């Protein structure tokens, strides 16, 4: 166990050093991360204002709060591993990772977390600025906020496992952009990024509850906003853990057969 701890520590150090070299790229990436929720925030606050201050159980201020917190939760659970793997497999740089005595997912997790350590203050700043501009209404529910912390961690793990599995598609297919885009579209609607899930028709809400997307973003987000009952919260945690288990099995299976299928190109 201490071996793994040392590994993470060392990986954090190298990742941090590498990230700090590309500060400008980090800022530009942050702008992109802020803009998308900002667009939907504007659209829904305008809709709510035209409909007399409230739509589908959300007031104008609650919409603002929803999309600002969405931005933060999305940032905390975000990964870019699919792009990374397409490159690794196509350029053969995965060969080096395979030579190391530890599973490559550890360095990927460490890499992701360290980049967020650097970018999170910027994200908080952006959230604060949006808070001043759009006057969100928060309902502070202490137990729900406390429960949201493990929910975010589980959401991060779930999203990481799922997207890491999806990234392994690069082993069999060299052009994965169409697959990734389909995934992003499903993510956009079913994780609550276009609109709060309760605004969708019943059958879409049903699909969203079954598929993993809701549990990667919408669940911790609704918890933070104090919109869930204790029972719903317990159900949510159970579903998250169930999906993490399934995703973990999927990931292991894909990784084992994928490595066998992998034919290094160049490198």
């Amino acid at each position, binding site marked *: 166990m201490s071996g793994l701890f040392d590994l993470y520590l060392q990986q954090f150090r190298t990742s941090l050093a590498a990230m700090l070299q590309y500060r400008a790229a980090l800022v530009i990436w942050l702008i992109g991360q802020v*803009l998308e929720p900002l667009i939907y925030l504007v659209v829904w606050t305008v809709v709510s204002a035209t409909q007399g201050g409230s739509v589908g159980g959300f007031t104008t201020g609650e919409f603002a709060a929803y999309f600002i917190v969405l931005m933060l939760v999305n940032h905390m659970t975000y990964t870019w591993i699919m792009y990374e793997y397409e490159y690794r497999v196509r350029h053969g740089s995965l060969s080096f990772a395979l030579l190391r005595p530890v599973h490559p997912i550890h360095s990927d997790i460490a890499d992701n977390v360290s980049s967020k350590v650097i970018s999170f203050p910027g994200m908080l700043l952006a959230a604060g600025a949006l808070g001043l501009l759009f006057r969100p209404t928060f309902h502070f529910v202490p137990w729900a906020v406390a429960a949201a912390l493990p929910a975010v961690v589980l959401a991060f793990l779930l999203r990481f496992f799922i997207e890491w599995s999806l990234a392994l598609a690069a082993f069999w297919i060299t052009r994965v952009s169409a697959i990734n885009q389909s995934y992003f579209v499903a993510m956009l609607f079913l994780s609550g990024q276009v609109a709060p899930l309760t605004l969708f028709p019943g059958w879409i809400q049903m699909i969203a509850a079954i598929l993993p997307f809701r549990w990667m973003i919408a669940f911790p987000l609704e918890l933070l906003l104090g919109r869930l009952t204790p029972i719903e919260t317990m159900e949510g945690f159970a579903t998250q853990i169930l999906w993490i288990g399934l995703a973990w099995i999927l990931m292991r299976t894909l990784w084992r057969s994928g490595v066998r299928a992998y034919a290094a190109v160049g490198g």
Partner: protein
Amino acid sequence: MTILRLFWIYLRVGVMTELAYRANFFIRVFQSLLELGTALAGLAVVFAYTDTLGGWRPDEIVALLGVYFLVGGVIGVVIQPSMEAFIESVREGTLDFTLIKPEDSQLLASIQAVDLWGFIDVILGSVVLIIALVRLGERVDGMQAATFGGMLLAGIGIVYAFWLILATSAFWFVRVENILVIFQSMYEAGRWPISLYPGWLRYGLTFLVPVAFATTVPAEALTGRLNSATLLGSLGLAAALLLASRAFWRTGIRHYSGASA
């Protein structure tokens, strides 16, 4: 006419390279359709809760979406790939080869790479636009069509000049491709009427990154919302930016000393 002749040559080269990868066609059509479907589904969710958005009716927003795809397609066919190739050539020093050709260097740099599949978005955008106009029952007379064409050209001119100015700064800063990424995320905002956004953002999307002139203004011309101040402003800005980018390009070329090709 030189422009058309040269563009035709580069387009043929683009076609020949891409035809080697025919499966790409289906992937790109799929991706464009997916993007369009996503946008329409997003509109469906919004309009389930309201009849108008910032004074725009659903079909009018769909028309705007058509313009968004159309202009995005034009950017994707030639402006973006050429500007990226140009920035790359400054870093690698291969710009030298462009400079020794006996045609205008700005023209050559601006059309040097053509991405054939970008036309998919141009076609899709036009289809969406026509369907939206038919559904609106809008009688587009000659005058309105001409204004729309003019505003579309002005918008594309503004976007081109904006990209050229950013790309030209590569002569001094070398690594500028990141700035271009900002434009792409800002362009997303052009899918919705610019009047929706709060003042500071509207200002940014009009003057800082001129997305408004590329999408909202041409759509306004078609839906009868365009006032003469915006019309003149768009034409004036297009002329000013095109001249400014030209002057900036000349300064940049003088500054360029080659990076050993």
